[in-house]
């Protein structure tokens, strides 16, 4: 038994939200037809009357009767709202009164001609926007629409009828409609009605009437309308299936790729792609393959951007590729993305050009293999138009000079040799010169070189010599070959150069992204990352960049922006879409704002302060910018997460320390206090009973424990000084013997079980140090050694001067340091795992580290060869010579 199929909860939720919105909204019913005259308005009125009979409050917002009595008859008895008069250039236009309708607020309103364009001065430019407002106000709307007014069908209709429809409505209106009723009439009947004068034809279309109302056209339009309606039914069907958990049977995954070029015709291709994708129910992509160096006029670029935008509006994914061979790029993309159908435009240029330079379309079709290629009227994205890209530079004058020099050189070489050479050989020398020039310099210099070589060849060598006359016609051919060779060679050179340039550009971009990611990977803190990212971005895009991060409440930092700019940035952060200068959203802002999108959502905003923000309308640049922004965002997110983790860790560690400190202190302070209290109270209370040796013992223990507490407090005070930064190092040039000596004396009895050997070289210089503090280092290290090593094992102290520092070694022969703990032992409250109680609170080495570090030195520990621990610390000699001591006569 299989589990009953459950509807996808997300889809259901979306459906519920949709329905809720719809419940508040008015319902929209569209009477849909293939052409004027099929009876849409008639059907609408009939239905309205039926509703009215049912008791529904019906009002007529606007219905065009076009003077037809049968339509007018249907209006009778219905509440027709008065129209609003608008004066426009001396003409009074009667328009639908939106405000009147909203005030009247009927349950159902009829608004004819959805695609109508309102007279200037109306609230909305288009009637469908009025309808939208009515629906939002909760009023049900009946309206009519002809198939040719659908945005996505505009081109097809134009193709069929030859008439460009201007008043289009977005397809989404049709898709949103709650009900669609097709008013259908066969072509023959329609033509009959037309002849009878029963069809209203707008005056402006009167001229096209013959072309429009042809039988073929009408049949095609009817098919379009019916198919569009069927598609909608299909969509409803799928909605139903989704709702009821019916397993959907998807068609084999298709994917449509539309390749557009930099020209206005691309819009047709985009619409064709949309239609194809809709009927195939598949995703589609609009691609523009840019050829570097290709010159595109500003208006073409504008058209390209608009078309890409249109594609996005129609639900396509858009992408821009860059490559010398457009066809190869398109195919590579298509294969990488499992595209099944490619839509391209028909080329409009002459066939000769294709013969000469090859055709993108041809290459595309030949290379397409299993992919279907649809060729649709409209210019294919044809970068071949400038198959020889013009590198964006002009040859400098110096190159012309050099070209002339090369030819002069050829003449100079050939002249003395002419006695032994034939004219043809000389022509070869000149040809070599021309090819050389062409391969090194631009087209201009090569043409100059070939002209110069022809002239000098003719003048100096072609008989009759020293005249420009040509005795033999075949030399004309030689001249022609020279010129052709120059052109071909320079053409090839330029092409190679352009290829190299493309490769370099690509390399540079990849390199830039790589360089940034590499640096980002090495950075630790978010602040570093922001600095690195902004620097790289600024370098790569030549614009001032800032990264704005939100505070804990999600409000972006101002980053020096005024409130208006900040609110744009905030919008970008909240909506995750770019906005600002150079975009369609809030374009009055002075910067372009790009969201920094990471895996957890938008984490910040990139503020691009370009001097020319329109620069980023270029899709390639914009895409690169987004790539950079994406990289930066991911790195920033990583750092943020790491910082958060670290903060947590620090908190846990601080908590651990606090607990550890409290338990250590309470133990270490109370133990000696306990002993003191106990001994003192015994002495007081049992004075008479105590024998002399016992008294002494008690007194001795009081003294010992008091000393122990004194040391403990001293350590704590030192620790506080080290921790709080209050440690003041008063350096003086001192011999190392002094602190060592004082430490040994201070430790006294505590070292009695360990022979301490001190070996300081007699030539050891004075060391700049704070003797009191360094003495404390020795005390702590020696105490440590005494504590952790078995009795009678030796402790060695030695020192040596190396590389501008004095290194001091304190070595013991104890059990050594547990492996891996060499660093940890310097941490606060560290205790060896096997350490017994009452041995100190683990501050000694931390204090040593604090003191040595404050001296600019380093302290470390390791295990000693042959057993035992070795502690080393260095004290820098500061590079300065120890100060001089006044000389004196030799010993008496």
């Amino acid at each position, binding site marked *: 038994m299989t589990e009953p199929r459950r509807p996808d909860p997300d889809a259901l939720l979306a459906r519920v939200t949709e329905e809720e919105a719809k419940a508040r909204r008015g319902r929209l019913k569209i009477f849909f037809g293939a052409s004027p005259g099929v009876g849409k308005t008639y059907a609408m009125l009939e239905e309205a009357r039926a509703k009215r009979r049912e008791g529904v409050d019906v009002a007529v917002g606007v219905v065009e009767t076009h003077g037809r009595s049968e339509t007018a008859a249907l209006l009778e008895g219905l509440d027709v709202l008065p129209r609003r008069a608008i004066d426009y250039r001396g003409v009074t236009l009667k328009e639908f009164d939106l405000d009147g309708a909203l005030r009247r607020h009927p349950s159902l309103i009829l608004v004819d001609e959805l695609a109508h364009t309102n007279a200037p001065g109306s609230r909305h430019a288009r009637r469908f926007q009025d309808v939208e407002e009515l629906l939002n106000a909760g009023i049900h709307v009946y309206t009519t629409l002809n198939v040719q007014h659908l945005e996505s069908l505009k081109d097809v209709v134009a193709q069929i009828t030859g008439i460009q429809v201007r008043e289009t409505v977005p397809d989404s209106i049709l898709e949103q409609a709650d009900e669609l009723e097709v008013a259908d009439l066969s072509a023959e009947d329609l033509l009959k009605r037309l002849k009878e004068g029963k069809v209203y034809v707008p005056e402006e279309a009167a001229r096209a009437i013959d072309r429009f109302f042809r039988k073929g056209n009408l049949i095609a339009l009817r098919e379009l309308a019916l198919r569009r309606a069927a598609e909608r039914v299909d969509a409803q069907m799928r909605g139903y299936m989704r709702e009821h958990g019916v397993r959907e049977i998807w068609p084999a995954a298709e994917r449509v790729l539309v390749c557009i070029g930099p020209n206005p015709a691309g819009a047709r291709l985009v619409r064709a792609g949309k239609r194809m994708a809709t009927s195939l129910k598949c995703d589609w992509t609009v691609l523009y393959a840019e050829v570097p160096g290709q010159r595109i006029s500003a208006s073409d670029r504008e058209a390209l951007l608009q078309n890409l935008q249109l594609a996005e509006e129609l639900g396509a994914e858009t992408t821009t590729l860059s490559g010398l061979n457009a066809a190869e790029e398109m195919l590579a993309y298509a294969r990488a993305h499992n595209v099944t159908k490619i839509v391209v435009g028909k080329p409009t240029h002459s066939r000769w050009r294709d013969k000469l330079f090859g055709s993108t379309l041809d290459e595309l079709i030949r290379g397409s293999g299993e992919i279907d290629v649809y060729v649709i009227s409209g210019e294919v994205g044809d970068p071949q138009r400038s198959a020889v890209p013009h590198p964006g530079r002009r040859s400098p004058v110096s190159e012309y000079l050099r070209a002339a020099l090369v030819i002069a050189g050829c003449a100079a070489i050939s002249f003395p040799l002419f006695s032994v050479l034939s004219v043809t050989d000389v022509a070869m020398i000149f040809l070599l010169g021309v090819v050389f020039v062409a391969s090194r310099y631009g087209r201009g210099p090569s043409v100059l070189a070939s002209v110069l070589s022809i002239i000098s060849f003719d003048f100096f060598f072609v008989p009759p010599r020293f005249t420009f006359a040509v005795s033999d016609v075949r030399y004309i051919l030689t001249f022609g070959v020279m010129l052709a060779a120059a052109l071909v060679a320079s053409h090839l050179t330029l092409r190679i150069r352009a290829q190299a340039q493309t490769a370099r550009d690509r390399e540079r971009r990849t390199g830039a992204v790589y360089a940034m990611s590499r640096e980002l990977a090495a950075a630790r803190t978010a602040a570093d990352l922001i600095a690195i990212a902004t620097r790289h971005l600024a370098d790569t895009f030549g614009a001032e960049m800032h990264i704005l991060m939100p505070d804990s409440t999600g409000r972006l930092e101002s980053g020096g922006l005024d409130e208006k700019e900040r609110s744009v940035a905030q919008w970008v952060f909240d909506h995750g879409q770019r906005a600002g200068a150079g975009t369609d959203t809030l374009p009055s802002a002075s910067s372009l704002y790009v969201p920094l999108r990471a895996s957890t959502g938008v984490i910040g905003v990139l503020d691009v302060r370009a001097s020319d923000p329109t620069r980023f309308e270029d899709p390639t640049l914009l895409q690169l910018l987004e790539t950079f922004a994406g990289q930066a965002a991911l790195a920033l997110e990583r750092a943020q997460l790491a910082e958060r983790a670290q903060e947590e860790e620090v908190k846990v560690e601080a908590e651990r320390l606090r607990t550890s400190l409290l338990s250590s202190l309470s133990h270490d302070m109370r133990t000696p206090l306990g002993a003191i209290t106990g001994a003192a109270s015994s002495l007081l209370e049992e004075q008479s009973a105590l024998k002399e040796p016992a008294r002494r013992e008690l007194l001795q223990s009081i003294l010992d424990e008091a000393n122990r507490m004194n040391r403990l407090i*001293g350590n704590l005070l030192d620790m506080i000084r080290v921790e709080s930064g209050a440690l003041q190092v008063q350096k003086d040039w001192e*011999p190392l013997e*002094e*602190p060592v*000596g004082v430490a040994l004396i201070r430790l006294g009895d505590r070292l009695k079980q360990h022979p301490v050997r001190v070996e300081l070289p007699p030539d050891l210089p004075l060391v700049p140090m704070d*003797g*009191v503090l360094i003495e404390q280092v020795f005390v702590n290290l020696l105490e440590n050694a005494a504590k952790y090593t078995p009795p009678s094992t030796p402790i060695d102290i030695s020192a040596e001067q190396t590389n501008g520092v004095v290194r001091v070694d304190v070595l013991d022969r104890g059990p050594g340091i547990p492996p891996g703990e060499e660093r940890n032992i310097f941490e606060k409250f560290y205790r060896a795992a096997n350490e017994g109680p009452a041995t100190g609170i683990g501050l000694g080495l931390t204090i040593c580290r604090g003191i040595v570090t404050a001296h600019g030195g380093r302290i470390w520990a390791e295990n000693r060869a042959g057993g035992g621990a070795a502690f080393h610390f260095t004290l820098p000699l500061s590079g300065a010579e120890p100060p001089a001591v006044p000389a004196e006569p030799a010993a008496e």
Partner: protein
Amino acid sequence: MAETKPVVLVIEDEPQMRRFLHAALDSHDYRPVEATTAKEGVAQATGRNPDVILLDLGLPDGDGIDLTRRIREWSATPIIVISARGKEQDKIAALDAGADDYLTKPFDVGELMARLRVALRHAARGDSPQEPVFEVGELRVDQMRRQVFVGDKEVHLTPTEYKLLTLMIRHAGKVLTHRQLLKEVWGPNAVEHAHYVRVYMTQLRRKLEADATRPKYLLTEPGVGYRLRPE
């Protein structure tokens, strides 16, 4: 008249500390006089004419260094200051202001008595010429012949070393700050060059001490100066 007990003025605000000092002094044949504030201390110093003054530098009502200076204006009574470890600058300031010695808290009775003995000895001798021969442990210095011996072996010293050593002998048992030593041996212009003293002290130790890192005679007072073991 039998020798009277020396009077020791204790200027100390801590009652526990006063109790300890009182008991210790009393049992060692001193006569303690107590003051709890700086103001009271000055009054007692004038009124009771003490033989030694024990002064705690951490008095709540006044600057112990200033008090030292004021007492020195009219009295040569030895002053021993008491201070905590880590307050070396205070000790030096007090010594330079005219204090004779110092004790670092906590200290034991032995230390206290040793300081008192030295202070009283120096005060009693006053300007009278000192013994021509100084002896401590193996070290013997004959100041008449300018000869220095460790055990039986004569040690040759440079003039500066000798000058430094005799200065230490003159103040044997008392701490001498770097500044005091520099001023006496190298002259008032050299008082900032503490390393002169350190270098010469190291040389002296190498010549006089059996183990220079564990000196028996020339003791280092960390952060303050040096002291010659008196006995």
